[in-house]
């Protein structure tokens, strides 16, 4: 994972544990992770409207050792994620709220709220105003392209 700050003009290697935007979010929370690549999942005891998935990290390089995910039964929309350390301590909770139709058949939560017992009294929110579908070749996701990512807006 690399971070590029235009003012500095140089990509720097960072970790998914780091928070580059500040607040309670870290990089792993912001990125769209492919959970199946990093976790093994089993069904837990859900509710009438929601399924519960228990995820266990495949290796130690993953941001969180265990995750609990609540997913709606009707539309398979993610509602809540609880992230735990290897010792079983709750690190943070992410809630996915305010479903919005972003067009093109995409209906998904527009607000992600996170809070943590490690940062009592603080909450961080990410609000998605719009989502634009784009298709890029793999070269866009390389280190040398980072200086030009702003051109893709």
């Amino acid at each position, binding site marked *: 994972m690399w971070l590029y700050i235009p*003012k500095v003009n140089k990509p720097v*290697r960072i970790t998914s*544990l780091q928070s580059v935007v500040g607040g309670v979010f870290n990089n792993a929370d912001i990125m769209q992770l492919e959970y199946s690549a990093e976790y093994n999942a089993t069904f837990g005891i859900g509710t009438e409207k929601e399924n519960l998935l228990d995820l266990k990290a495949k290796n130690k390089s993953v941001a969180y050792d265990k995750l609990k995910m609540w997913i709606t039964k009707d539309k398979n929309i993610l509602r809540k994620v609880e992230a735990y350390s290897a010792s079983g301590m709750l690190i943070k909770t992410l809630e996915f709220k305010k479903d919005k139709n972003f067009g093109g058949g995409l209906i998904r939560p527009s607000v992600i709220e996170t809070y943590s017992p490690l940062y009592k009294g603080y909450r961080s929110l990410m609000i998605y105003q719009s989502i634009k579908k784009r298709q890029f070749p793999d*070269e866009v996701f390389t*280190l040398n392209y980072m200086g030009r990512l702003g051109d893709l807006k």
Partner: protein
Amino acid sequence: MSHSQWLILFLLFVSTGGLFGQEEELLETPPEQEKKLEWSGNLDVKYTLFNMDQNSAQYKLQFFKERSSPTLVSQYKIEPYLNADYRTGDLGFVLKTHATYYSDANAQFDLFESYGSFNPSLNVTLQSGKLMYSWGKGYAFNPVGFVNSVKDPENPELAQAGLLSANVEYIKSFESDVLQSFAMMFVVIPSSELLNSRYGDVEKTDIALKTYFLLWDTDIDVMAYYSKDKPKRYGIDFARNLKENFEIHGEVSLNLNSQRYSIVNDSINFSSADNYSYLYGARYLSETNVTIIAEYYHNGLGLTTSEYQLYGNYLQKRTVNNNPLAIQQALGISQTYFRSSTLMQDYLYFKIIYPEPFDMLYFTPSLYTIYNLADKSFLLSLQMNYKPVTNIEFIFWPSALIGGNLTEYGSKQVQERIELWMRVFF
């Protein structure tokens, strides 16, 4: 290969950018490209208090014309940065300007960057104008920064002036566990020694090349710099994560026939030799979000301890009789040949950054040192950043330079300084 053959090769490389573009037309392009002009910038207002070392030769040279030479001096300056970024389709234009204002009689304007870019495809970029490069993986020093601006190790992230040049870059991604990404950049640098202030000798056009590999999850660059009248240089750098939160990096450059300056028999001496400069470093992130950066830097052209002492003695002797001619000569030699912030050979850089300690919101202190391993002198600095609201930043920044009279940091004209910055961004 002659210069004209290299230039023909460059032009061929540029012209085949269209061919590379045609084979990668997978992108859906919208029917109408948005034209976009964005302005940004910041205003830095800086107030600094200096505690001067009146016994320092550098101080005596700098202040010999002044009637009063106080120990405690202040400096107040304003530095506006104004940037423009224009993008339409495959074309772009970037402008970055900077000014320094001390008084109406003492102000300076800098054009940091001004360049146009063209992307015939997403794999290929052509850029031409004055632009900044950031070669190398080091944080405070870059031995392989052949085309980089001179970096201030005390503030490595500060914007710097670019290089008048043209470049073409090609990027290619692979689906492989071994080689995942490849890039190549070819840079042409016209002669900086101008004739009649406008013309350059074509034979003195320099060429630089950098190739990048993401190999087994390791960033590796190999670079070369070719010049007819400057030292030829070759380098390699790498960066890799050993653990999720622990990164290592390194650079090494071979500089052929480099010019080296020293004081011999009380006068400036020129010599040339091949030399290596290199850097090893690491970055660690703790569970409490503390970042630690450590780097060792060897400057192959640097002075030894005894050579630095000879230089220091040379300056001191020139200040003894207050002879204006001797002082001017010494000042000229110091500013022409001994301007670098790292004059000697071996340095250790160490920095700790601790965002929001003890729940102190928006406050980030960092402590760093640059330690001269040969003469044991060092600079110690504590930078305290406070960003209470978006787009505004306050910095309180005390620093001390410690060492004996004939050591690098001990002989500087400033012993301590305290800086107060206010930065407003837009």
